[in-house]
């Protein structure tokens, strides 16, 4: 029970005192038991007033502080800092809002306003009497970070963290690194190919002593909390020995009788059950596709490096922070969507693979391609579908692709059926270049999309072109390219394991789009790259470096101090019904056995002090530091007038 409380009532220049009789409020509270001093002040937030309050605290050894002023959103941090400067624990400070909640709200009733202000200040005094000093929770932080996804974002983040001296576990679900970028040949605005970029990054992390790369690996379980995550990583075998013979392996690929759709080439080609996607792919070892391998043994006959005895492993790792850079999937058009399924209609990612495979003649399904119709915003900016967002990268990628076709092949004509070209920023020059190469742009509104039909053996694209006064214009195309946008990974189980919340667009959500763009509400888990939303490579790199810096800041000191406003379980009365664990949105509550009894335990570094567990507890065994039942009840007593 506090007995030397300082109460300061602010006039706010007149904002408060014009409607609330501040003197009357001070008079009403000055004789309350425990109130040492009660003063009114013109501006409590003024430097001089702050100085006076902190001096009062230290000189008069105050053990509680109430400032009745504006909204706590504005000045709670100010006065709790004043308390600390005076030597008072900041949790012994209670803020009373008599401006937004009183003077501004009741400017028509001065007497009533004053009465309400008195009650609010009295309630604050009642609460501060019961307040408890709290200390930040200190936890040890592991100086290691798990980076999920070895695409360009993940590899870049891993390299940066490793350079800073952090042990990095780079965990890739596929058997090869590079992600989506390795599927690209030339990149817009860079003199390198996607593969070169991947090789470049791989070389940086490969020899780095601080990076451990796991391929074919997936996080299947996460426990613990910021600074001390325990993760389980499942590693599927490659079925290739560590010391392997390259020539024999190439022969093994040749003899493998199993042919399946090659998803690296978006199913336009076939691959074997033992495969690698391209020559210079890393790690430089093929892998065996366990799902499709029939174990016929043909490969073993020609290759001594095959080892079918390899088993799935599960590793336990402890990390201080997790950086998720798990990427995206390209949108998969639905049957009939812009002619999908009628033959010579492909997606932009498929088309990029086709260009990669055709050297001096652009050929698809045995036919030479000259006239190409690109249809934009497929799976993005949908009117009816869920994908309301713009996928950002596609306008630039399409125009760049068109330029590539002009450079690589002769007599190409490109027709861009768009809804407004968005080659933002420096990418505008790409639009300019394509335009000057003679590309034709046709534009429609979202509710009047172009139509793709098969007419007399030709694929016809028709549009009501708003650039030609809404006239119906059409073209016969040899190939229709659907410019598909980005979607969240179809298999987003990793998000469920980590409990990263998703936005309405189903991508992982940051805390604040502008101010906290790489942090998630799961403390210690950061996100980077296209798993967060559509991004181009440059933007992915930006977010990767940003997330790396944020994750680094969590683990670099080796310890963390956390806000102490958290829930606490009364071990005596708790009988473990499990309702609190169900209510907890952060998985902070688990059951433990203590003295032969099942009780709830709250992980202090996971609990966010949201209070969801309190009302569901039937035995009322949970209390919250900083908002204890006694504090709240004492306020209610005062306000209810008892």
């Amino acid at each position, binding site marked *: 029970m506090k007995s030397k409380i300082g109460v300061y009532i602010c006039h706010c220049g007149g904002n408060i005192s014009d409607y609330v009789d501040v003197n009357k409020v001070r008079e009403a509270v000055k004789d309350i038991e425990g109130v040492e001093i009660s003063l009114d002040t013109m501006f409590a937030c003024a430097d001089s007033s702050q100085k006076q309050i902190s001096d009062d605290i230290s000189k008069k050894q105050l053990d509680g502080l109430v400032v009745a002023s504006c909204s706590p959103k504005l000045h709670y941090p100010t006065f709790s800092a004043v308390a600390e400067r005076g030597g008072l624990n900041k949790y012994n400070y209670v803020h009373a809002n008599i401006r937004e909640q009183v003077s501004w709200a009741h400017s028509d009733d001065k007497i009533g306003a004053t009465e309400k202000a008195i009650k609010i200040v009295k309630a604050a005094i009642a609460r501060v009497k019961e307040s408890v000093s709290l200390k930040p929770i200190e936890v040890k932080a592991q100086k290691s970070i798990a980076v999920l996804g070895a695409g360009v974002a993940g590899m870049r983040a891993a390299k940066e963290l490793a350079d800073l001296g952090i042990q990095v576990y780079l965990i890739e679900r596929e058997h090869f690194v590079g992600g989506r970028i390795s599927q690209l040949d030339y990149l817009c605005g860079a003199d390198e190919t996607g593969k070169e970029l991947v090789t470049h990054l791989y070389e940086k992390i490969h020899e780095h002593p601080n990076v451990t790369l796991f391929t074919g690996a997936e996080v299947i379980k996460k426990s613990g909390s910021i600074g001390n995550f325990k993760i389980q990583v499942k590693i599927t075998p490659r079925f290739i020995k560590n010391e392997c013979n390259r020539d024999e392996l190439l022969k093994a690929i040749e003899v493998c009788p199993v042919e399946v759709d090659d998803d690296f080439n978006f199913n336009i080609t076939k691959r074997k059950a033992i495969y690698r996607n391209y020559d210079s792919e890393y790690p430089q070892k093929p892998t065996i596709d366990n799902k499709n391998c029939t174990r016929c043994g043909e490969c073993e006959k020609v290759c001594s490096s095959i080892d079918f005895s390899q088993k799935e492993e599960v590793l336990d790792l402890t990390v201080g922070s997790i950086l998720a850079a798990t990427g995206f999937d390209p949108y998969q058009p639905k049957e009939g969507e812009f002619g999908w399924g009628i033959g010579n209609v492909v997606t932009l990612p498929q088309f990029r693979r086709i260009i990669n495979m055709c050297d001096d003649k652009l050929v698809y399904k045995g036919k030479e391609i000259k006239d190409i119709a690109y249809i934009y915003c497929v799976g993005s900016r949908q009117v009816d579908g869920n994908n309301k967002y713009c996928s950002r990268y596609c306008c630039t990628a399409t125009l760049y692709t068109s330029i590539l076709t002009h450079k690589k092949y002769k007599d190409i004509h490109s027709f861009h059926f768009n809804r407004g070209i968005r080659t933002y920023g420096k990418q505008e020059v790409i639009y300019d270049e394509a335009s000057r190469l003679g590309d034709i742009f046709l534009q429609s509104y979202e509710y009047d999309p172009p139509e793709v039909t098969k007419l007399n053996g030709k694929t016809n694209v028709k549009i009501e072109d708003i650039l030609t006064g809404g006239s119906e*214009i059409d073209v016969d195309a040899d190939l229709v390219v659907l410019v598909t946008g980005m979607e969240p990974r179809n298999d987003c189980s990793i998000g469920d394991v980590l409990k990263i919340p998703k936005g309405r667009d189903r991508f992982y959500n940051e805390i604040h789009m502008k101010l906290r763009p790489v942090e998630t509400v799961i403390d210690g888990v950061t996100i980077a790259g296209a798993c967060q939303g559509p991004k181009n490579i440059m933007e992915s790199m930006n977010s990767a470096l940003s997330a790396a810096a944020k994750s680094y800041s969590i683990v670099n000191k080796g310890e963390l101090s956390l806000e102490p406003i958290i829930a606490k379980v009364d071990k005596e009365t708790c009988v473990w019904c499990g309702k609190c664990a169900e209510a907890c949105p952060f998985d902070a509550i688990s059951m433990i056995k203590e003295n032969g009894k099942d009780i709830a335990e709250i992980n202090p570094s996971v609990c966010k002090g949201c209070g969801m567990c309190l009302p569901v507890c039937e035995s009322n065994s949970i209390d919250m530091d900083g908002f204890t039942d006694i504090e709240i009840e004492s306020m209610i007593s005062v306000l209810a007038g008892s």
Partner: protein
Amino acid sequence: MAKINPKFTDELKKYGAFDTNACYNCGHCTAVCSLSTEDDSFPREMVRFSVLGLEENLKTSLKPWLCYYCGECSETCPRQAFPGELMMTLRRWLTAKYDWTKLSGLLYKSLPVSITFFLLVIAAVIGFGSYENFDTEKIMHLGHYFEMFSIAGVFAFILLPNIIRMWYFTIVKAGVKVKFVTYFKKIWELIVHMFTQKRALGCDDNQLRWFEHLILVIGYLSLLFTTVVLDWLGTESTFIIWLGYVESAVIFVVTFIFMYERVKKSKELARHAHPSDWFFVIWLFLMGLTAFIVRIFIDVDLIENNLWMYLIHLTVLVQWALIIVPFGKWTHFLYRSFAMYFDALKKVK
């Protein structure tokens, strides 16, 4: 439904178009154009039709003729797509499309063919001179006859059918229904525009150029009248002689100014001269100048011994009458005024 023809711009480039593909449809050109109206909006629409290769839409349009090329659109274009020059190019292209003989297109597209035609005329005139034993009086007499017959012939066999074709494309094919009586009611439009080009005054700051053009047209038409009807080169009348001197001087002075502007590229419209533009001003200049000198030679009694001077004039005259008038830039004189006439017909409700 209109089908895109991406190869059309390649064809158009042969008529003088530039980087039409640079257009990104901002519409600056149409916004600054002082002749463009809500009902007759250009040049953006014409640029768009050209980029898409919608030949039918272009062929049935009168808009290229409604532009009098002040050049402001080209100056304003943020993409240097030169819409003004495209309108000029479309006029050349339309001239070729209206011409049933297809010779216009051939001459516009190929400079060597044009030069060959000019050379053939030179050879023919020299051949004709030697056939007549370089008899001055006879040659000048026949030259006068040539003037009359060539005017009648070119009009009857080339220009008239081509105007009918223009009417067919822009009125019939365009689906415009015009009452028979309207053709008479609106005939005044044809005459006014033919002799005044008054629409050109709608271009910003264009009074001087309009005036230069006007006196050139009047000078040209009256010299034509003075030589063909009043027989300037054969007359004894002092008044007619002096009239002819003034008229021919007007022609070569004004065309000299025009040539000078094209060399200096001082105005937007003079920056991108096509060979056909050069032929037109040079030959008009030569017509005025050689006629002037021939008449001086006659007046100082030099012509008897200097037939070559008349033969030069005759060569220029024949080249003009058989190449430039029926198949070259001269036709814009007719098509422009008929376009205004047809446009007036279209606007009658």
